[in-house]
């Protein structure tokens, strides 16, 4: 069931948790987390069956956060959907914490630890093949970064998923157009990205990665091929001074910046 109003509320709460977490831990990747939070909010609120994830039902939808550096986004959504204890994010990156700056599978609802790019997609291909061969329903949904398209395993996996006709596999690319040092097109040009995926035999669509209804509808459509959604996003979305800058790939907010961020998110 698609209830985009509630997923918007989930994304607002989660945005606040993200900036609080990066402030608390003096950690990087606020921008990457804010660009992908709408995608994750829709997936966890409107797409998956949370009970199946809680019980690790073999027919569950499997979500893999391959852009492991946006860990704060995943953790905050899991907390706000009841899949993880809030206490855990209160200790984000602390000594002895179970959750670190890159996605750590210390809680059962996190399927895979990531952090090195290009691992989540082929891992998800393995799960998707298993689901098909063993007649288990549920999709495998990979959330990856656009910079991750630099990795060779992305294109190996694009071949594999197409070859095995994995129409139970959905890749969502957080297309915020900024990577570690510069823009994606200045670094290692990806365009024409949609055509690349189409030529690999994928159902490829461009969507607005902050429009909850559009995300939900695009994820829900099922065809006969694997599907990629190139979700156009803004790095740092929702906090004006973080938007579209490489600086906020690294910088953590200070107290003043945190309060301003929370104010902007609440007023949006």
């Amino acid at each position, binding site marked *: 069931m698609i209830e985009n109003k509630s997923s918007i509320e989930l994304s607002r709460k989660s945005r606040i948790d993200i900036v609080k977490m990066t402030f608390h831990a003096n950690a990087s990747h606020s921008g990457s987390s804010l660009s992908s939070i709408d995608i994750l909010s829709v997936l966890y609120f409107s797409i998956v069956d949370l009970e199946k994830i809680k019980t690790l039902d073999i027919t569950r939808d499997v979500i893999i956060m391959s852009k492991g550096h946006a860990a704060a986004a995943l953790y905050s959504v899991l907390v706000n959907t009841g899949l993880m204890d809030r206490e855990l994010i209160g200790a984000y990156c602390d000594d002895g914490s179970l959750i670190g700056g890159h996605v750590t599978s210390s809680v059962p609802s996190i399927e895979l630890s990531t952090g090195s790019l290009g691992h989540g997609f082929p*891992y998800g291909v393995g799960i998707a093949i298993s689901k098909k061969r063993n007649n288990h329903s549920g999709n495998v949904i990979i959330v990856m970064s656009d910079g991750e398209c630099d990795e060779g395993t992305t294109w190996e996996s694009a071949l594999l998923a197409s070859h095995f006709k994995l129409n139970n596999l959905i890749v969502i690319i957080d297309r915020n157009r900024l990577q570690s040092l510069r823009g994606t097109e200045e670094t290692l040009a990806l365009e024409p990205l949609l055509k690349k995926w189409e030529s690999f035999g994928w159902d490829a669509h461009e969507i607005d990665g902050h429009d909850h209804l559009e995300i939900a509808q695009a994820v829900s459509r099922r065809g006969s091929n694997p599907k990629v959604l190139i979700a156009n996003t803004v790095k740092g979305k929702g906090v004006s001074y973080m938007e579209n800058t490489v600086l906020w790939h690294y910088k953590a907010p200070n107290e003043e910046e945190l309060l301003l961020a929370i104010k902007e998110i609440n007023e949006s």
Partner: protein
Amino acid sequence: MRKAFVKSLYEAALADEKILLITGDLGYGVLDIFEKNLPNQFINAGIAEQSMMSLAAGYASTGHRVFVYSIGNFPTIRCLEQIRNDVCFMENNVTIVAVGAGYSYGSQGYSHHALEDISIMRSLPNMKIMIPMDPQDAVDSTSYILSQEGPSYLRIGKDGEPNFESRIERCSINKFKEIRNGSHGTILFTGSIGKNVVRAAESLLAMGIEVSVAGCTNLSFLDSEYLEQAAAKGPILTVEEHATPGGFGSLILEYFAVNGEFPKINILGAARNNLKNIGSQEYLLELNGLSSENIKIQFAALL
């Protein structure tokens, strides 16, 4: 060894549909039986080792037991980070099967010489390492792996190795397998280099030196009782078709560094100052210090 492994895995897979075999587009003429008779338990992942390894881990995470088959360095060093993160850290039931140990593919060049894999696999967490010495041992190792949970590495030679007829008994996989017994010292080995070790022991006998010879299959579970008896008896030489840093000999040195007193010991492995030389397995073994003659000389030097 290769055929013995495939046959034993095939028989296990017939009885257990949770077993999956993935190949990195290798195994011509050997894996056909899987592809033909158990298509639902077989994947050819193409020439994409890194994705193949993550794919294997993902498949295993759904409650399956996955074997990944390829040659030498391709399912190990080529996809090391995938093994480290997705297999070992995630504790998935993936067994990496590397055929062509050491110089098995000698004439194919250095890309196909597996000389650093033991060291690298040993350094990974949760990884069990099995190195059979002959075809029967490959069968026993496969059964052992199937009885265990978690990641494992199976390093096998090629085809045509004879079984060690002289082996006293088919003992537990966790015991050192003594092929000869002598009172002047011990040569320990791992893998199919055992045949050169036995020849060296025969030459030593002609010199009046009686040496015990024992093979180690399970590098993750050392037979401390045997090691202590060997240390009490006399000098120890270790032999492996692999470079010495971090390898089998290094494992034995680490054991004695932590447990008890050092015996007089030397470790013998493949020299790597002739990397560009091409030739048969026997030629490269001799060139790089692993001929039965050099094993004999190295042991005699310890007395």
